[in-house]
């Protein structure tokens, strides 16, 4: 199984992303609750790229590949632009989010709590983020 979705950098596309992922995950043994969390984690990474790395420019796009390897499902998110290194990023803790009244910062926290493994690599122009979830 290897499926691909191209997402143009507009937050209106996120609903299409969820529909695509929902179909992909229906073929797995994940429960409804786990599936929703996996969809959420992938969306958080994509939304982050669309908004912060591509400034919601709808002429630019990111690509998502879904792969199955043994008992693991892998979401590979590729984009061309200034990369976002999710592994090096130090997300704030909940207290900081409360104190500063910032509306961001929770997304990456969710990704790190939901996914079993995260990889990031960049060659300067092409960035790849891989999210692994054990089935």
């Amino acid at each position, binding site marked *: 199984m290897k499926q691909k979705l191209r997402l143009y950098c507009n937050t209106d596309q996120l609903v299409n992303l969820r529909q695509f992922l929902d179909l992909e995950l229906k073929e797995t043994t994940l429960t409804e609750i786990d599936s929703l969390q996996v969809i959420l984690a992938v969306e*958080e990474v994509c939304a982050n790229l*669309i908004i912060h790395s591509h400034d919601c420019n709808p002429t630019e796009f990111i690509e998502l590949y879904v792969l199955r390897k043994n008992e693991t499902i892998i979401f590979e998110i590729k984009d061309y632009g200034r990369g976002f290194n999710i592994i090096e990023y130090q997300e704030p803790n909940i207290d900081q989010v409360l104190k500063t009244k910032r*509306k*961001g910062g929770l997304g990456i926290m969710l990704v790190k709590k939901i996914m079993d493994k995260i990889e990031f690599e960049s060659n300067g122009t092409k960035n790849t983020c891989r999210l692994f979830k054990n089935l």
Partner: protein
Amino acid sequence: MLEIKIIKEEKYSILHLEGEVDASNSVELDSSIQGLLEEGESGILVDACHLEYISSAGLGVFMSYLEDFQERNIKLVIYGLKEKVFQVFVILGLDKLMDIKNTKEEALEEL
């Protein structure tokens, strides 16, 4: 797709959420809450019975008001969350920080 309806009762307002809250529409949730605050509302019930999904953009809206609400003695209570949506709050520990109830009756007791 997110639909927000505001129902005004004598002593509180109900913010009825239907559909999905994500980065494309969380600003609508924000401005609805902001609007209620500007009108001087001190009790807000969030009816989440028909909320199917919420991403960090929506959670962040609620979080951004928590301290203000405490300082100004404004109550915001969420009720009717589906289990799959409630579990998203649990991942971040927001179930401990926010007032979340099962039913409208229980939520009303918090006001």
